[in-house]
């Protein structure tokens, strides 16, 4: 059986799901848990980025996968449980971002650092915009613009983590370069 995405000349080297899916997901959840400690210094709280957006962006860019969307679904469900959101709230928001990156993947692949960062920022806005919409539909209230903007800002600053994940694995499978 051959895959339509394979290109002749170089052998396919499938990624190990443990290294590109499981470990980053666990690291993301660990970071979320660490930043959820009730610490306040000089009246300021710790930031609370949505680490899982990094996964949604990087996994879609590394390669199309059957496992990645379901891994993202699981990560989103854990976030829903951890943050006390409605079940499916973060899972759906993250998957919307993942789908958007997957569709636009041919446009982003091979672009420079800044362009990819801008694309990542767009993904952050899309994910948080979806969460904004779902909150409006569920609670009949508009979330605070400044609260959403601050969360989007700290999440957007996580691009170096996403870039590192992409650099680490995008060369692993030559079929999807």
């Amino acid at each position, binding site marked *: *059986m*051959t*895959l*339509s*995405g394979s290109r002749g000349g170089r052998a396919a080297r499938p990624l190990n799901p443990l290294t590109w899916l499981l470990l980053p997901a666990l690291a993301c959840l660990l970071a979320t*848990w*660490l930043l*959820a*400690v*009730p*610490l*306040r*210094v*000089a009246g300021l*709280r*710790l930031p*609370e980025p*949505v680490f899982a957006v990094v996964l949604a962006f990087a996994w879609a860019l590394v390669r*199309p*996968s*059957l*496992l*990645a*969307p*379901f891994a*993202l*679904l699981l990560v*989103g*469900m854990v976030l829903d*449980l*951890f*943050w*006390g*959101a*409605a*079940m*499916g*709230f973060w*899972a*759906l928001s993250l*998957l*919307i971002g*993942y*789908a958007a990156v*997957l569709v636009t993947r041919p446009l982003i692949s091979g672009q420079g650092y800044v362009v990819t960062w801008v694309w990542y920022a767009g993904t952050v806005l899309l994910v*948080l915009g979806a*969460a*904004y919409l*779902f*909150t409006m539909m*569920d*609670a009949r*209230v*508009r*979330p*605070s613009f*400044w*609260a*959403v903007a601050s*969360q989007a800002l700290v999440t957007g600053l996580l691009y170096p983590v996403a870039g590192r994940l992409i650099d680490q694995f995008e060369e692993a499978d030559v079929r999807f370069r």
Partner: protein
Amino acid sequence: MPFRESPLEDLKVPLTWTAGAAVGVAILVAAFMLLGDRRDSLDEEAWGSIRNGFDRGAAAAGSVLAAPVRGVGDGFEWIGDYFGAVSENRRLKRELREMRQWRDTAVALRDVNDRYGTILRLKTYPEVPMVTAHVVTDARGAFNTTRLANAGTEKGIKVGHPVLSEHGLVGRVVGVARGVSRVMLVTDPSSKTPVLVDRTNARAILTGDGGPNPRLEFLRGADPVRNGDPILTSGDGGVFPRGIPVGVAVKGLDGVWRARLYSDRSPIDFVRILQFQDFSQLANQPGLSVTTVPALAAPVAAPVIPGSVVPGAPAPGAAGATPPGAVAVRPAPTAAAVPSRPVAATPRPRPAATAPAPVRRAPPATPTPTPAPVTPPPAAAPAATTPPATPG
């Protein structure tokens, strides 16, 4: 037979399209979960057991991390106290001067209040028991602001209990398991709390939006609120008791009235969970079903209403037993035994001796000692049974 030599060798699987289909399936699953979740219901929903189990694990893990972090936070606070000692001292002295004036006012008002309470025989709410707990995790995002506290069902905490810090209202319990409760803060977009403006008694709904200062919505009347007005819980709806301090009113940059929360003054690491459910728990439910009649001037034989029971008389069907739903009619207690009725300035004329006596409902239980309904002596005149009348 090796796979490469099988008839499926030439089968080409469009992985990109298959991956797209996987995304679609995952999105559908997530969408169905979101639509099917009934988080707004206080009842145990389908995900309730999973949430409770997860919360127990998260609280246990959070406790491990929260203890050293709390120490670090205390260390920063200890250092900050040195830098702010002078200004803090001045502020505290100013507040102390104000508080002394308030103390004198409060003593005078308490005296007047006690007199009014005695004269009017007002019912006040009894003390509500509370549980103290540590906060072990803290979700602060724009969409969900909840915390886990390390006290749960083993301490009698239930969903809906109000949660306070040492400064004021924090939120309410939305999930509880053994050893852990999930507290939804008043800043959560799903949180709606009935409040009042202390100065004008104007009602509003405190609506969280994920920001630090929730909105005051549905304010009515002319000039119902001004900057700095204290905001308290109104007790409307019975979820929160009346009078819990919430914050002060401020006008946001967007022109919307908001509340600057008292609980935001310091880190919320300890919380008090009030074991308060609603006002119905304050009433003596068996007492509400008992009706009493005032004393008659002369013994009068009155018709017996079917279903009513006269004390001392054999009940229909079962000897001495009150059938369910029956109204137990008793002779009237003395005037001192009816504490809940206001004392009129001019005594109302007593009913004619032959007229059927109105039925009074027994007062609900109050913190002040409430006399039990007077049981007639065995040799008392037979009591009249009348249809229940609306009190007052």
